[in-house]
């Protein structure tokens, strides 16, 4: 068997304590020569070198003090804010404060280390290790104390107390875990619904301008949103804002692209989901939900910048490359009576990353 006894320290030259360390088969071939003799440094024997080193260390500490003072000067003289001071195209305040602080700290550190290396005693010292495990007496004493304590408590003789205590402590799991329930609402159907409704206009993001087909050219990409994001109520307040707006945006953001109709390979059920070659797809990647708008107009591929999932927008946003598993959902669009692009229905499948309950829609 080759397992070592526990707690035996590996000692080179002492692989097996029973074997003669000088025998031919085992042990160290060379004996430990012991600590090498101390070799003096110039500062140990040469007073001039020692003084020079001392001045060097003190000089570094002095420079550090100077840098700390310069920090104060820079703090009060260099402006930030509306009209910041600059230096060589960089922000002057950050640069000056940082250089002053950094040098002050660095010089203290370098000085301290130089002091240790050049002037402090560099004689090596030997300290013996103690066995890591406790001694046998300590172990026995501890075990005895434990045994005494356990006997006094009588827990071994009183299984009723022990079991009921365990049960009570286990039951505390309920009040420990349950209050976390209100961390958030249950998902319900939230992940499957967006704000898109039939008749809702598709408008350009940021400007909120409604879009007519004639305004979109072949090869164009429009980053679009539902018109409700720009709608205001009677008091002029936005209908959707804050977290509600963000939560709606994270599923409702879309892109419009115009493709030559003969290059579109729509599924039969989607034949009327576009207008004159203008197609509307969800902007939210089906991988883990980053917005996509890297559209290549000549290949009609769209690339997600996060993990490089690539979709073919001329082919129902089929996945061409990358870790996404499902095509981008398409939003059916049509025209309203004023000729602007509108959604003709909501999305027909959940938008964005997959989740357990999604199924094969």
């Amino acid at each position, binding site marked *: 068997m*080759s*397992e070592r006894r526990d707690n035996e*320290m*590996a*000692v*080179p030259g002492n692989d097996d304590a029973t074997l003669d360390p000088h*025998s*031919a088969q085992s042990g*160290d*071939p*060379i004996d430990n*020569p012991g*600590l090498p003799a101390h070799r003096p440094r110039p500062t140990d024997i040469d007073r001039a070198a020692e003084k020079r080193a001392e001045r060097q260390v003190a000089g570094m500490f002095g420079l550090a003090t100077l840098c700390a003072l310069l920090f104060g000067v820079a*703090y009060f003289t260099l402006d*930030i*804010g509306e009209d910041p001071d600059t230096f060589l195209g960089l922000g002057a305040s*950050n640069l000056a*404060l*940082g250089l002053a*602080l*950094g040098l002050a*700290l660095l*010089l*203290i*550190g370098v000085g301290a*280390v130089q*002091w*240790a290396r050049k002037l*402090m005693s*560099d004689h090596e*010292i*030997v300290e013996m*290790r103690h066995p890591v495990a406790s001694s046998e007496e300590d172990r026995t004493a501890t075990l005895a104390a434990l045994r005494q304590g356990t006997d006094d408590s009588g827990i071994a003789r009183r299984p009723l107390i022990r079991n009921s205590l365990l049960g009570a402590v286990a039951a505390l799991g309920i009040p420990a875990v349950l209050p976390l329930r209100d*961390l*958030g*609402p*249950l*998902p319900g159907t939230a992940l499957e619904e967006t704000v898109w409704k039939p008749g809702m206009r598709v408008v350009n993001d940021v400007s909120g301008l409604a879009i007519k087909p004639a305004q979109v050219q072949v090869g164009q990409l429009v*980053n679009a949103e539902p018109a409700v994001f720009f709608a205001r109520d009677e008091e002029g307040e936005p209908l959707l804002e*804050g977290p509600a707006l*963000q*939560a709606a*945006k*994270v599923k409702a*953001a879309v892109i419009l692209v115009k493709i030559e109709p003969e290059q579109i390979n729509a599924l039969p059920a989607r034949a009327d989901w576009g207008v004159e070659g203008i197609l509307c797809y969800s902007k939210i990647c089906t*991988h*883990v939900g*980053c*917005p996509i708008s*890297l559209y290549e107009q000549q290949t009609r591929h769209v690339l997600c*910048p*996060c993990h*490089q999932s690539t979709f073919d927008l001329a082919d129902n946003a089929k996945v061409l490359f990358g*870790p996404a*598993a499902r095509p981008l959902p398409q939003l059916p669009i049509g025209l309203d009576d004023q000729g602007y692009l509108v959604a003709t229905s909501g999305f027909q499948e959940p938008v964005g990353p*997959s*989740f*357990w309950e999604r*199924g*094969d829609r």
Partner: protein
Amino acid sequence: MSAASVRKREPAKVKKPSKIGGAATWADDRLGLATVAKKNIRKVFPDHWSFMLGEIALWSFVILLLTGVFLTFWFTPSMGEVVYEGSYDQLRGITMSEAYATTLEISFDVRGGLLMRQIHHWSAMLFIAAMFVHMMRVFFTGAFRKPRELNWVVGGTLLMLGILEGFAGYSLPDDLLSGTGLRIADGLMKSIPVVGSYVSFFAFGGEFPGEAIIPRLFTVHVLLIPGLLLALIGLHMLLLVYHKHTQWPGPGRTEKNVVGYPMMPVYAAKAGGFFFIVFGVTALMGALLTINPVWLYGPYDPSKVTAGSQPDWYMGVAEGLLRIMPGWETELFGFTISWNIFLPGVVAPGIIFTTVILYPFIEAWITGDKREHHLLDRPRNAPTRTAFLVAAMTLFGLLWAAGGNDLLAILFNLNLNYITWFMRVAVFVGPPIAFILTRRWCISLQRQDEQQILHGYETGIIMRSPEGSYSERHLPIDPAAAYYLTSRDRDEVFEVGSKADGNGVVAPGSRKNTVRARLSRFWFADNVQKPTRQQLEEGHSHADQELALHAADAHPADGHQYDGRHDVAGDELRKE
């Protein structure tokens, strides 16, 4: 007063002049510090640069605490919306969260604020990088072996917590880049089977992005994880002090001692000085190098994104896994399992972390080594272990590169898709190749060491024998170096006894033992053992014979003079 009467009185309590000062006496009267301090003030620490890598992490943590507290004085962890009216022109009038607005305030309207933000962020990067480097050092030198396995577990946990802490930290400003990262984290949560959407809704307090995640991350980042980190770092240091630091083998060093310099004054100066150096370097980085320019990203908006969206480097492994994973997803009975997200994002990190934590126990099981180790292994003397880490580093390196595949594409003018395909293959092919190469390299280094021990070093003097053959003169290396090379354990392969005893009863766990024996053989395969005393003497006798052969030469050169270690001025030999 006569001497006799003085003696009769109670001898006055002689107040020795206190060497440690009045304050220390006051403290000691109440805390009994001297008992604890007596051993530790001159505690010996071995001196080697590779022992200071953990210190980089330790001091970075202190810097993070200091700069972090500074930042909390201005940062408001709220997703409530405000209209920005601060100094940064390009965002004035934009509606944004208070978290983002106060981050802009720190950057542009607080003197030194941007500096502290940048020092904090650089320091976080260095904290985790230093933990990795320190971990690699500990691994390569086998310092995780008994009795330090628990310290390794603590360290691995520290690394994991550090990574989570960094993620929470850079998500706090609620800017476009980190918000995109939170979106990806949300996608990862949703991919968990059965409970995914619940986890997502509970974490974000509703639908993504909600208004709860930033305040919650703030609590995690400022209270929960720092508390855990402090406690675990304390435990890590405590174990280090109790076990004492490991040391390299060498003259005067044994398993039973520690050779080095005392804490006071040398280590206090070196370690304390190193704190200032780490802080200084970090501050200089904060001064000169922009990091996380949140004003350029703008506030988080779920319909905006930037090219080159990556998390901070320490999440790069998960990012790379997500990018190269093919799009596999299955639907079962109306339920969706997203393998393409769940495997790289949740399962793989779990496996990696578990392997890291359990490693010392796995290696101990394979090698059957239950001895205490306080002397370090040279990496070459544990070829399989070294090769394993190099293979892991190769895997991690490839995944990091895969996480930045779009940047590789634009910086080096490469095809993005080819990079992804290359990585898909390389992560399977690269690590085994690295393993094999490293292992052979270690073994050949061991062979070189063996040559040096047995035959000495090559002097460069070529001798020609009377028969006409050439040989190079070798001289013995000095005893300290020879001792260093041989100061290592002999490897012992785990042997299985007979599977069944005399009555044909199979020993329990014998299949496990067979596997263990096979692994153990693989572990120590081709390892070059240190020579025995007899082999050494044989080697030396060869050298003596060599010397005898050339004794008849008119000018025998022992080569020793010309190896650069001696002064050869006026030497006769060269005059010929």
